Every structure is written in C-alpha cells, then in structure tokens.
C-alpha cells in the first residue's frame, strides 16, 4: 500500500492528512499517481488544475513527476516550504 501524506494548505484543500492506496494497475510514476488522485478526488484535481505550486516527496526526499513508485512507498504532497 502506498502511504500518502498531505501537508499545510494542500492538506486543507484535500481535506485529509493521509490515506492508504494501492498503486493503481498500470501506474508506475508520480505523474500516474497524480492523475489517479485527480480522478478520484475532485479537491485534488482542483489543486492540480490551479496555479498553485505543489511539491512532492517520495520516501521523504523531494522528487519530480517522473519518479518511479514502488508499492510500499511513502508519498507526500505539500506547498513550497517556509521554515526558519
């Protein structure tokens, strides 16, 4: 199962902080996962369609949409970081 996390403004828009999901068949990359989430969650789709910048981390390392996913990966979506 993929372990998906949402943070900050993304968490508020999506309406949950995490979820477990089987990697959909035929899906192998972050881009595929984003497409899948957009079809099952209208709030997530609205986010992807907006101008908002979304970052993704796979197993706690920032990744891009071509990153390959394995079935037990931890994937996180969040806005640009504002530490310090």
């Amino acid at each position, binding site marked *: 199962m993929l372990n998906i*996390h949402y*943070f*900050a*403004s993304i968490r508020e828009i999506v309406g949950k902080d995490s979820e477990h999901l089987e990697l959909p068949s035929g899906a192998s990359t972050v881009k595929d996962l984003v497409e899948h989430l957009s079809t099952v969650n209208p709030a997530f789709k609205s986010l992807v369609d907006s101008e908002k910048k979304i970052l993704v*981390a796979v197993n*706690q*390392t920032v990744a891009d949409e071509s990153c390959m996913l394995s079935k037990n990966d931890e994937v*996180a979506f*969040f*806005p*640009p*970081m*504002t*530490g*310090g």
Partner: protein
Amino acid sequence: MISIQTDDFDLNDEIQKLRRKGGDTGAIVTFTGLVREFDSHKNNQTKAVKYLHLEHYSGMTEKSVETIVEEAMTRWPVLAARVIHRIGKLNPGDQIVMVGISSGHRKDAFDAAEFIMDYLKSKAPFWKKQYTDQDSHWIESRETDVDALRRWQDLNAK
C-alpha cells in the same frame, strides 16, 4: 545536533554547550529567528499577528536538516553545529529558530550559519500559518529566499 521541538530554548545554554564541544574554538556565531509582531508582506497592509502555527513533516524534517548541516560541515571547517527549530503555536516575540556554529575563525562560522539558515527557509519541510484578528493564511515562500540559495549554488559552481 538537531532538535525539532515545541519547547522554548535558552540561547545562553546553547552557547555554553558549543564552547564545551572541544576543538580549538575561536568563534561562535548564533542566529536566532523570532516571530514578528506585524505582517507587512501582503499588499503592503500591516496587520498585527496574533500567533503562528508551525507544521512540519516529521521524519523528513530531521533528515532534511541533517543533510543541510552535513553540507555546511563539508564546506567550512565547522567544529560543532546546533540547530533548534520550534513547531506548534508561537506568539509574536517568541524564539522560533536557532542556528549555532563554532569554528576556528569567525568568517567560517558566519558563513556556515548563514548557509544553514538560507537552506532551512526553503529546503526543510516546515510551513507557517499566520493568524491575525481578521483572518488566517499560509505564509508563502518568498522569491528572496530562493535568491539566497542561488548565491550558494553559484559559489558551488565556481
């Protein structure tokens, strides 16, 4: 040594710990960031800040900060490094972050501390939500923070 915590910290204690870390310490530089009382970021309107709420990605935060500190230690002859970043609810005037560096000489200590702060701003998974009397909003990343990183990356390329 890295701490992500809700509790406040005592800057003087941290300086004394850096003094005792050993090595031929000639310089200790510390930076402390505070929660500002006024927000003049949006539309040049000044609003009184009631409080901030700091969210983070537990696990990734610690890993990211460790990577940043390790990178600083490969670039400069740092003897000891200390990073404290607070999370949760913070009021105006509260200490929010502290970076402390001990080194043989001041230039290395200043540079390493500034490098770590610049990277903490946009490469460690923290997010700030600001509450005023009227509303609340997520603080957005600033172009100047990205520029600050570019400076170190350009140095790297030389």
